[in-house]
C-alpha cells in the first residue's frame, strides 16, 4: 500500500500494463521526450527509459495519431493515446466517433478496438480553448465506454480495466486533480491522492461509487465536482444528510447504484463542470426521470456552468465553475 497522486497512480498503472502485455503502447505528443514533460501533466514522465520502443512521440496531428491508434488497436495492439488537452479532441472526433466507435458494428462484430484514450479536462486559467469539459461530446456516441476518475485508486484501477477491455474506452482526467509536480504543477489544485494497493487490481468499468452516505438527497458528480460536492455535503451538515455518488462511469451509467440511492433519498442534484445546456447532466436527469419516476419526490436539478465559452479572467472562471457554495445552496433548496 502506498499513498499516491493521480499522476503517480496512472504512471504506475501504465507501466504495469506495459510490463504485463507487450501489445500495450503509448502514443501522443511530448509524452516521452528526454528532458521533456511526460505529457502535458507528467503522467508518462520517464516511461521512455523503461520502454524505449513503446512510448511514441508524435508530431502535432491529433487526427492522424489518434486514427493510427485506432488502426493499431484494430490489429490487436492496445494503444494508450494521450491528448494534451481534451479540447483538441474536436480535431480527432471523426476518427473516434466515425471509426473507433463504429468499426465493430460496421464489421458485423468481427473487429475489436481495444483503444484507450486519455484526455485532461477542466478550466485552469488558460482561456476558452484549453478548458472545456469534453465529456458531453462523447456520451451520445454509441460504441464508446467513458470513465472519469476522481482519485488515484480509481485512476489506476479504471486505467487497467480500460487497457484490458476490448472496446474503445475514453478516460477523462481533471487537470486540478492530477497532482502534477515540478515545472508542470498546476495552481489551485484539489488533493485527489489516495492509498493504492501494491497488488494488481482493476476498478470495473460501468460502476459508480457511493462516496458519502446520506438520506435526504443524492448528489451526482464526477472529477473535480465530486470533491466540491463532498465539501458541500459537509457544509450542509448536520441539518441535511446528503449522499454523494461518484458517477465515475459516464458511458454506461451505473443505474443500479444511482437508482438505489434515489430510492433512499427521492431527491437528486447533478453537479457538472461545463455549460449546463447539453451536458452529461442532461442525460442523467432525463434517464433518472424515465427510470425512477415514482421514487422522485422533487424534480431533478442541475448545478452547472453558465452557457458561455470558458472565460480567462480568474474571477470569471471561478464564477463559471460550480463550487461548494453553489452546490450547498442547491442542496438546501431541494431539501427545503
Amino acid at each position, binding site marked *: 500500500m502506498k499513498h499516491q497522486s493521480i499522476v503517480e497512480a496512472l504512471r504506475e498503472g501504465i507501466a504495469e500494463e506495459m510490463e504485463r502485455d507487450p501489445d500495450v*503502447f503509448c502514443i501522443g505528443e511530448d509524452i516521452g521526450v528526454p528532458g521533456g514533460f511526460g505529457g502535458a501533466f507528467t503522467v508518462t514522465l520517464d516511461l521512455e527509459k523503461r520502454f524505449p520502443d513503446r512510448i511514441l512521440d508524435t*508530431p502535432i496531428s491529433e487526427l492522424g495519431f489518434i486514427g493510427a491508434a485506432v*488502426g493499431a488497436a484494430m490489429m490487436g495492439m492496445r494503444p494508450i493515446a494521450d491528448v494534451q488537452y481534451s479540447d483538441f479532441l474536436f480535431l480527432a472526433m471523426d476518427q473516434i466517433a466515425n471509426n473507433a466507435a463504429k468499426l465493430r*458494428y460496421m464489421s458485423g*462484430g*468481427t473487429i475489436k478496438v481495444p483503444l484507450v484514450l486519455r484526455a485532461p479536462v477542466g478550466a485552469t486559467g488558460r482561456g476558452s480553448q484549453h478548458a472545456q469539459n469534453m465529456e458531453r461530446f462523447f456520451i451520445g456516441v454509441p*460504441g464508446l465506454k467513458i470513465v472519469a476518475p476522481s482519485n488515484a485508486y480509481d485512476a489506476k484501477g479504471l486505467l487497467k480495466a480500460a487497457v484490458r477491455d476490448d472496446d474503445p474506452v475514453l478516460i477523462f482526467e481533471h487537470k486540478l486533480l492530477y497532482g502534477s509536480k515540478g515545472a508542470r504543477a498546476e495552481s489551485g489544485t484539489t488533493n485527489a491522492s489516495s492509498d493504492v494497493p501494491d497488488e494488481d487490481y482493476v476498478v470495473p468499468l460501468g460502476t459508480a461509487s457511493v462516496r458519502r452516505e446520506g438520506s435526504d438527497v443524492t448528489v451526482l458528480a464526477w472529477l473535480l465536482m465530486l470533491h466540491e460536492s463532498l465539501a458541500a455535503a459537509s457544509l450542509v451538515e448536520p441539518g441535511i444528510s446528503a449522499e454523494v455518488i461518484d458517477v465515475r462511469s459516464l458511458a454506461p*451509467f451505473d443505474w443500479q447504484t444511482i437508482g438505489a440511492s434515489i430510492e433512499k433519498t427521492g431527491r437528486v442534484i447533478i453537479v457538472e463542470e461545463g455549460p449546463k445546456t447539453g451536458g452529461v447532466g442532461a442525460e442523467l436527469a432525463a434517464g433518472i426521470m424515465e427510470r425512477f419516476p415514482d421514487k422522485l419526490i422533487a424534480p431533478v436539478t442541475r448545478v452547472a456552468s453558465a452557457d458561455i465559452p470558458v472565460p480567462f479572467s480568474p474571477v470569471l472562471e471561478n464564477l463559471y465553475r460550480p463550487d461548494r457554495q453553489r452546490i450547498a445552496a442547491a442542496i438546501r433548496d431541494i431539501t427545503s
Partner: protein
Amino acid sequence: MEIELTDSIEVSQTYSKSFLLGLYERMVTCRQFEDRVKLLFLEGTMPGTIHQSQGQEASAVGVCAALNQDDFITSTHRPHAHAIAKGLTTEEMMLELFGKSAGCSKGKGGSMHIGDMSKGMVPAIAIVGGGMPLAAGMALSFKLRQRSQVVACFFGEGATNEGAFHEAVNLAAIWSLPVIFVCENNLYGASTAYSKTTRVPRLSQRAEAYGIRGETVDGNNVVKVYEATRQAAEECRRGEGPVLLELLTYRRVGHSRRDPAHYQDKDEQAFWFGRDPIDLLANGLVSSGDVSEAELRDIDARVAQTIEDAVTVAREAPLPTEADLTTDVFAMELNR
C-alpha cells in the same frame, strides 16, 4: 513528370499465362459485379446508394495481386473492386449489399463499408481520407510486432486535400511504416475536377513534402500497376516505406447512383473510354498469341454465372431481425 499512357499492354514472358488470366478474371469479376449491381439498383431491388468503379479495375486488381494473403487493404466509399481484388467472394458482398444477415458484415455495414478482416480487408471507410490514419496505425502494429506485412491504403485523388491524408502520410513517413498509399486519380472527386482542387500537376509530387518516394503509373495498365505495387511492397517490407503511388485512371460511370457525369469532359471521356483496362489486357493477351478470344469468353461466362448465383443466393437469404439490432456494438458488454 510525363507518364506514358499507352493504348495497349505488351504482355511479356515474365508472367505466366495463368497469372495473367487471373488478373483478367478478377478485373472481369469487378466489372460484371458492378454492372449487375447497377442494374439491381436501377430496378429498385437493391437498397441504399452505390459508388461504382467501372474503368478502375486495373488499379484494384493490380495492387492486390502484388500483396500477400496476410497483407491488408483499406478502402473507400467506392470499395467493390478493392474487395473482389483482395479476395472477398461476390456472394458475401452481394449478401451485404442486399442487407442480409449472411453478408460479410451481417448487413450492418452495406456497400460503403464492405470488408472482411479474414481476407485482409478492413471495412471500407466512407469518410473521404478517413481510412488513411487507420492504415498508418495498422502498419505501426506490424512494425511494433516485427511482422513483414504491409498495408495498401486506397484513396481517391480528392482525398489528398484532406488533413487526414497529410497527417497519415507524415506519420507513416517519420516512422518508415510499411504502407503503400495508393491514390486512384480518376480526375474527379464527385463532380469536381482534380485541376480545380490543387495546383500540383502530379499528385505523386506531394510525396516530396514528406520525404518519401512517390511514383505516377498508368492505372489502367494492370501489369504496370502490379509491378509498381510489388516494388513498393518490397521497399515497405525492407523498412523503406511508405511509398505514394498515384494511379492514373478514369471512372466510366457516374459518381454514385444515377449520376450521368455530365461534368466529365467529352474529349477526356473519349480518350479514357478508349483505354479500358480490361480491353487493354485482353488485347495484349490475344495479340501475344498465348490466349485465344474463346478462352477469355469462357472466363467471362464463368464469372457471369458466379455472379448470377450470388444474386440468387442474396435475394433469397434471410434478413436480419430485431434481435440483431443491438448486437455487435461492444465486444465486452457492460450491462448496467
